[in-house]
């Protein structure tokens, strides 16, 4: 079956050169270049920017939403989305806080019943995972659009948070050291949240790129019917991915509560948007099938660096919103242009 006609057309294939050989996605390169450019420009303008302590500041801020963004990446690669993570952050934070020693609140649900910190954390993570699991169940069994399904659970979980706290904050008098360590501690000079963020990113990168589950996630997002006809367990994989995101949102909620030493009803509000922005800026396509955890890491850092710079320049919160929104719009437009290029 050898064919000379096919050999003749060999010219069509360009040899792989330079960066292409490293097998890095073009989207990653683009967002990476933007981030590096930003860092260079900012260090030239403001000497305060380029210092190790400022970098740690950025990382500490980015870590919490970054953990959510990493999980959100997998959800978006399957072609889904989850708007409920911000509410999950709030609820898990409040539930965990209520179970930690010395916590107090005017809420009738915050009782004298307390657990050791590791157990309280486990309960919190279980609550987050459960919310994610239910999201996955609703999306796969009722075939409701993920956007609508999780919009519903976002409001529902927020409602639970109000019910649970009665609208009152949960505070500590004082916070136990082992719980404080999660959000405020440090190991080898690196803040604990940054360590946790690093572990999450490495784990999710590994899952997405090196395991059969990860491959299934990409296949399901790229072509759900082809994935199903290749014997992949589409529903189970989706449920798994939403559960994992719920778990990570719970983790973020626990870190945030420890860092602020308080669980309030506004904790986590808007986190879903920051996380989704980071994922999209990092080059993951909202259509599904394409994207990477590493891209999202770059994306959340880009948002973090911009916000940090605006802080250094003393810009108001309002201006920060405007700038972050502009960056997101820019990223989405670039995604759209890249997709049109691929089609032609």
């Amino acid at each position, binding site marked *: 079956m050898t064919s000379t006609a096919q050999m003749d057309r060999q010219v069509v294939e360009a040899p792989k050169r330079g960066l292409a050989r490293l097998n890095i996605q073009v989207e990653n390169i683009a967002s990476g270049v933007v981030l590096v450019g930003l860092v260079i420009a900012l260090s030239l303008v403001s000497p305060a920017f380029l210092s190790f302590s400022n970098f740690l500041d950025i990382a500490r801020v980015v870590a919490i939403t970054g953990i959510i963004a990493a999980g959100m990446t997998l959800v978006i690669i399957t072609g889904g989305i989850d708007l409920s993570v911000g509410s999950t952050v709030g609820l898990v934070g409040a539930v965990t806080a209520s179970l930690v020693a010395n916590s107090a609140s005017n809420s009738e649900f915050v009782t004298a019943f307390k657990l050791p910190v590791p157990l309280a954390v486990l309960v919190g993570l279980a609550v987050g995972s459960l919310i994610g699991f239910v999201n996955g169940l609703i999306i796969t069994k009722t075939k409701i659009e993920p956007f609508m399904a999780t919009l519903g659970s976002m409001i529902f979980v927020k409602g639970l948070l109000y019910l649970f706290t009665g609208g009152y904050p949960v505070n500590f008098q004082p916070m136990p050291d082992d719980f404080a360590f999660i959000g405020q501690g440090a190991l080898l000079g690196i803040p604990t949240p940054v360590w946790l963020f690093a572990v999450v990113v490495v784990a999710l990168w590994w899952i997405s790129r090196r395991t059969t589950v990860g491959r299934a996630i990409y*296949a399901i997002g790229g072509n759900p019917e*082809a994935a199903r006809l290749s014997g992949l367990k589409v529903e189970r994989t989706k449920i798994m991915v939403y559960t994992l995101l719920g778990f990570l949102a719970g983790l973020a909620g626990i870190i945030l509560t420890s860092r602020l030493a308080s669980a309030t009803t506004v904790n986590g509000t808007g986190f879903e948007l920051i996380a989704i922005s980071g994922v999209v800026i990092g080059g993951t396509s909202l259509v599904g*099938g394409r994207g990477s955890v590493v891209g999202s890491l770059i994306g959340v850092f880009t948002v973090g660096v911009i916000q940090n710079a605006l802080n250094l320049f003393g810009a108001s919160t309002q201006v920060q919103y405007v700038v972050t929104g502009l960056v997101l719009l820019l990223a989405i437009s670039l995604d759209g242009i890249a997709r049109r290029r691929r089609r032609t």
Partner: protein
Amino acid sequence: MVASSTSQPLLRMEGITKSFGNVQVLHGVDLSVGRGEVLGLLGENGAGKSTLLNILNGVIERDAGSIHIDGEPAEFAGPKQAQDAGLAFIHQELSVLPYLTVAENVFLGRLPRRRGAPWLVDWAACYKQAGEILERLAVKIDPRTIVGRLGTAEQELVEIAKALSMNARIITMDEPTASLTEAEIERLFTLMRALKADGVSVVYVSHRLHEVAEICDRATILRDGKIVSTVDARTTSSHSLATMMVGRELSELFPKTEHERGRETLRVSGLSTVKLNDVSLAAHQGEILGIAGLVGSGRTELARAIFGADSITAGEIFVNGEKVTVDSPGAAIRHGIGLVPEDRKLQGAVLSMSNAHNISLARMSKVSRFGQLNRGGEKQEAKRLIQDLQVYPPRAEQETGRLSGGNQQKVVLAKWLFAGSRILIVDEPTRGVDVGARAAIHGLLNELAGEGATIIMISSDLPEVMGMSDRILVMHEGRIAGELARKDFSEEAIVMYASGLEPTKEGSKA
């Protein structure tokens, strides 16, 4: 009809050259079409047909060369100018708007306006004019029908009506018969003959060579961006057309190889679903079992039911004599069944993934331990299959969506070879696939059968299903209407069974 040889051609393209980047796609192509002529344009995928047609219809610009229409030089700045000059392009994937009426589609962007109130649409005139055009085409469709309710064939007729409403003189049709049934194709051909009589010219692209012989006057063969030859389509055999397209001798169009029929591997008894009614069949080692029938007769549903993709209401499936439960594609795969689905892009391949990842998809367990992929092993295995099946370009990391249709289909086949399927169901395996890839796919199916695999081949292409199969089952309205042994194969017998009739004695002999 005006004889094309005596008058000057309606369309003349000369020395058309086009490069994308540093790849030259067209090398000085000459082409002419006479008034009222149907010109077949043949070539493998990648030969430059699409580029040439896009240049003709003003979609892309040429680097060099000239286009004359009726002796006048034609320069198109875009598709709109080409339309104004009397060109129409009917794409393989139809561009009708499904939620609008037939008349609205026909006059899209040019709806007749009311006199004295040009901001209002004159609906009466719109439906009347659309009705007149449809009448001219001898098509019985109400212009008020919502297009989405029409079948594919009728939607195609709407596209042709649209072209005529713009006074198109040269209509380009890119694989218009790809998704039509035999009867619908006949209807289209009748229409094309009427267009010819009216002096409308057609540039006709198809991979089905017997159709070219039936409808085209001349055929121009394009290979690697150059014109190989222009021949009389009615007197040139399909075999020599194919040879010219591929540029090498195809030993035979359907090189059926005989092999020993072994023991029974698959038995289906009393299978029923929403669309299937009490279907029973048996297939054997080394056998290619053809399944023919009209589109919608339940062929695809049968394949999906055996593969566990659709739920069954009754019936049993036996693999190698053992009763098995196939309630999901995963279960089917574990029992060694594979399915190459009908729609490659929507069901077959994950276009956003690489060839290697597509190939390992149905059985990742083969290249993983405890869920962790052995990417080196995966790539090696994929490369071997890519070489065996001559996927072009032969790269494991290449994104499958960037391959031509035929090569995408090879990747889907490679997936089942990787998964080690011993019972392979292929649904329209060569639809929209060029001649070279088609021959390769046929060769592969023969080879697999020779190695003792069981192949079940669904096809609407009668020469294909008759050329390849050892036995043919013909379906009609969710049932098996008839069975033919190889010695009894005839188009007539298949068509009779497919229409729910018993073949007559003369019919089966003809």
